[in-house]
C-alpha cells in the first residue's frame, strides 16, 4: 500500500490529483449499474478534460445553468419549490433524468423557505413573503454594515458577524446583540461575568430559535444529500462542489450594499482595501469546505460588481481583481477548480484572466463576446456559456441551435469549452433547453487524433 502524503506537504498539483481521484471514484458510491458508473466517470472526464486544456474531451460537455427552472418545467410554483421538499426533489430528479446534462445545477439553489421563516431572514424577499409565489427570491439591498463599522469587520470578522451584522439581517439572531465578544472569556475567575449575557431573555430566545433553525437546516440538507446520492448513483455529476466569490462582492452585495460601496470607493478607499483583504482567507475557506464536504472540487464563484459597466478598469484593478485573484489562486493551491461566473460582460477584463495559470479555472460567461474571449484567453482558461436567456425563453428552438453551432465552431474549436446558457434560468421553453443539450451532444463531438 502506498503511503498517503500528508495534505500539508502536498503540492497544489498533488492536491488536485487527490481530489480528482476522489471525484472520479467517490467513496461510498453505490452505482446502480456498471453503465451508471461508466456514465458518471465519462461525464467527470468530459468536464475535467474541457477544463484542464490538456486534451480534447470526447465531445463538448453541456451544463445548463439554472435556479428554479426544474420547478418551472415540473409545473410547481417557486413557493412549492422552497417549502415542499418532496416536490422540489421530485422536480429536480425529473429534470436530471429527462434531460441528462453532463453537469447539473442542484436543488440547493431553491433554498428552504421554512428555514428562512424560522430564522426571520430580512435581507431577501421570497415567494409568498414579499414577492409573488411565481417570482424567485430577491435581495433587498441595504447598508447592513454601516460606514463606521469597517474596523469592526476588519479587526474581528466573526465577532462582527455574530453580534452586529447577523442580528441586523436575521431576526432570529437579534438577541446576540446583547452578547459580549467570546474572546473575553479568558480566565476562570470571570467566567460567570462572561456568561451572564447568555442568561438574558433576548439571548435565550435567540438560542431557542437557533435550535429549531438548526433542525430545519439539517432536515433540508438531508433531503439535498439523498438527492445528490441518488442521482450520482444513476450516473450524474453535480456542477458545483462548493461556492465562493469575490471579496469585493461580499462587501458590495450584502454588507455595505451597491450604493454605499460605490461611495466608499471615493470616501474611504483604504477601508475597502483592508476589508477585501481580510475576506480573502474566509472566501478560500468557504470554497475548500464545500469541496471537502461534497468530494467535488469544482467551486462556483458568482461575480457581480466587476462587470464591464460596473466599474472602470482602474477601479477593477484597484478594488476588485487583486483579492479575487488571491481567492482563485488560493483555491487552486488547495487543489480546487475555481469556476467564476462573470455576470454581465467581461470584454474589458479579459487581459486579467490571462494572468491565471493555464488549465486551472473555468469561466462562465454571460454576455461576454465569446469569440473574442477565445482569442484572448482560450489557451489559459476553459470557457463556459453563453446562449442568451432571451433565446432560451422566447425564441424558436432553431435559433438556439444556430447559436450553439456558432459556439461549437468558434469557441469549441480545440477543446476548452463547455456549452451552457448565459445566466441561470428560472424558466425556459422546454424545447429550447432540449435543443441546447441535444444539439451539442450530437454536433459537439471531437475527432480524437
Amino acid at each position, binding site marked *: 500500500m502506498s503511503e498517503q502524503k500528508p495534505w500539508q506537504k502536498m503540492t497544489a498539483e498533488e492536491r488536485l490529483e487527490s481530489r480528482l481521484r476522489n471525484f472520479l471514484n467517490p467513496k461510498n458510491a453505490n452505482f446502480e449499474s456498471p453503465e451508471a458508473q461508466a456514465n458518471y466517470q465519462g461525464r467527470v472526464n468530459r468536464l475535467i478534460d474541457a477544463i484542464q486544456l490538456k486534451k480534447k474531451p470526447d465531445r463538448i460537455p453541456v451544463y445548463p445553468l439554472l435556479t428554479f427552472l426544474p420547478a418551472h418545467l415540473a409545473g410547481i410554483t417557486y413557493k412549492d419549490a422552497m417549502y415542499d421538499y418532496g416536490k422540489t426533489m421530485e422536480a429536480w430528479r425529473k429534470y436530471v433524468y429527462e434531460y441528462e446534462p453532463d453537469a447539473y445545477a442542484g436543488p440547493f439553489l431553491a433554498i428552504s423557505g421554512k428555514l428562512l421563516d424560522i430564522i426571520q431572514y430580512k435581507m431577501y424577499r421570497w415567494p409568498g413573503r414579499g414577492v409573488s409565489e411565481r417570482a424567485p427570491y430577491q435581495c433587498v439591498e441595504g447598508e447592513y454594515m454601516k460606514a463606521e463599522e469597517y474596523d469592526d469587520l476588519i479587526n474581528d470578522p466573526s465577532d462582527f458577524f455574530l453580534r452586529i451584522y447577523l442580528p441586523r439581517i436575521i431576526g432570529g439572531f437579534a438577541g446576540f446583540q446583547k452578547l459580549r465578544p467570546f474572546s473575553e472569556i479568558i480566565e476562570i475567575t470571570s467566567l460567570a461575568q462572561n456568561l451572564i449575557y447568555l442568561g438574558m431573555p433576548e439571548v435565550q430566545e435567540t438560542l431557542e430559535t437557533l435550535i429549531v433553525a438548526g433542525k430545519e437546516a439539517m432536515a433540508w440538507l438531508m433531503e439535498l444529500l439523498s438527492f445528490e446520492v441518488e442521482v450520482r448513483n444513476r450516473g450524474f455529476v453535480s456542477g458545483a462542489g462548493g461556492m465562493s466569490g469575490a471579496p469585493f462582492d461580499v462587501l458590495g452585495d450584502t454588507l455595505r450594499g451597491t450604493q454605499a460601496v460605490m461611495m466608499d470607493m471615493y470616501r474611504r478607499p483604504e477601508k475597502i482595501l483592508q476589508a477585501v483583504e481580510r475576506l480573502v482567507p474566509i472566501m478560500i475557506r468557504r470554497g475548500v469546505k464545500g469541496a471537502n464536504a461534497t468530494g467535488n472540487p469544482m467551486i462556483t464563484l458568482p461575480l457581480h460588481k466587476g462587470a464591464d459597466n460596473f466599474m472602470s478598469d482602474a477601479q477593477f484593478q484597484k478594488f476588485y481583481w487583486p483579492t479575487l485573484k488571491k481567492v482563485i489562486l488560493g483555491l487552486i493551491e488547495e487543489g480546487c477548480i475555481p469556476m467564476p461566473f462573470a455576470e454581465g460582460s467581461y470584454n474589458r477584463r479579459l487581459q486579467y484572466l490571462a494572468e491565471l495559470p493555464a488549465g486551472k479555472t473555468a469561466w462562465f460567461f454571460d454576455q461576454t463576446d465569446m469569440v473574442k474571449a477565445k482569442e484572448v484567453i482560450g489557451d489559459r482558461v476553459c470557457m463556459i456559456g453563453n446562449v442568451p*436567456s432571451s433565446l432560451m425563453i422566447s425564441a424558436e428552438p432553431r435559433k438556439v441551435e444556430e447559436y450553439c453551432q456558432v459556439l461549437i465552431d468558434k469557441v469549441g474549436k480545440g477543446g476548452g469549452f463547455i456549452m451552457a446558457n448565459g445566466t441561470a434560468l428560472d424558466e425556459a421553453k422546454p424545447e429550447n433547453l432540449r435543443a441546447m443539450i441535444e444539439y451539442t451532444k450530437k454536433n459537439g463531438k471531437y475527432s480524437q487524433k
Partner: protein
Amino acid sequence: MADELTNLIADLKETEALELVEKRLSAGGNPLDILAAARGGLEIVGKRFAANEYFIPDLVYSGEILRQVVKIVEPKLKGGHEMKRIGKVVFGTVAGDIHDIGKDIVVFMLDINGFEVHDLGIDIPAQAFVDKIKETGAPIVGLSGFLTLAFDAMKETIKAIEAAGLRDKVKIMIGGGQIDEEIRKYTGADAFGKDAIEAVKLAKQFLR
C-alpha cells in the same frame, strides 16, 4: 470656459465642490446659478459615461454630490427652483421584480436631462402603469426588469397599455440585465436600452 463648480462636480471632487457651494452662498451667490452650475457638472459626467470614461460608481457618486448641493442650497431658495422640463416619463420596475439599482440610475439620468419622471417604484402591476399614464398624460414609458420573469411582466404591461387604448399615445422603452432585441420584439416595446445614457437618448428621440 466652464464654471469652477461645474468642473469640480464633473471631476467628482466632493469636498471641494461642497466647500465652493458654501462659499458662494455666503458671498451672496444666486442659489439658482449654483444649481445650474452643478447640473452642468452632471451633464459632463453623463458625457464621460457615454464615452466610457466614467462608469456606474462615478455616475452614482455624482448624483450623491448633487443631492448634497441641493440640500445646502434648498433653504436659500425662494419659491420654485424647478428646472424647465422637456417631457414626462412614467417609469417603474415591472411586476414580480424588486430590483431598483438600474432603475434608479436611469431615473436619475432622465431627471438630470430635464425629464419629469414619475417613478412608480418596484414590483409594479400593469394597471398602475396604465393609471399613471392616464393621470400624467406622459408620452414616454420606461419598463425596468432584472429577472427573466420580467420578460412576461413587460409583455403583459404593454398589453394592458394597449387594452386601455393608450398604445399609440406612448412610446415604450425597456431595459435591464438580460434585455435585448429578441425581448424587445417579444414584449412589443418600441425600443430597448443597455444603459442610462441610451435611455436618455431614446427618450429624447421619442419626443421628436
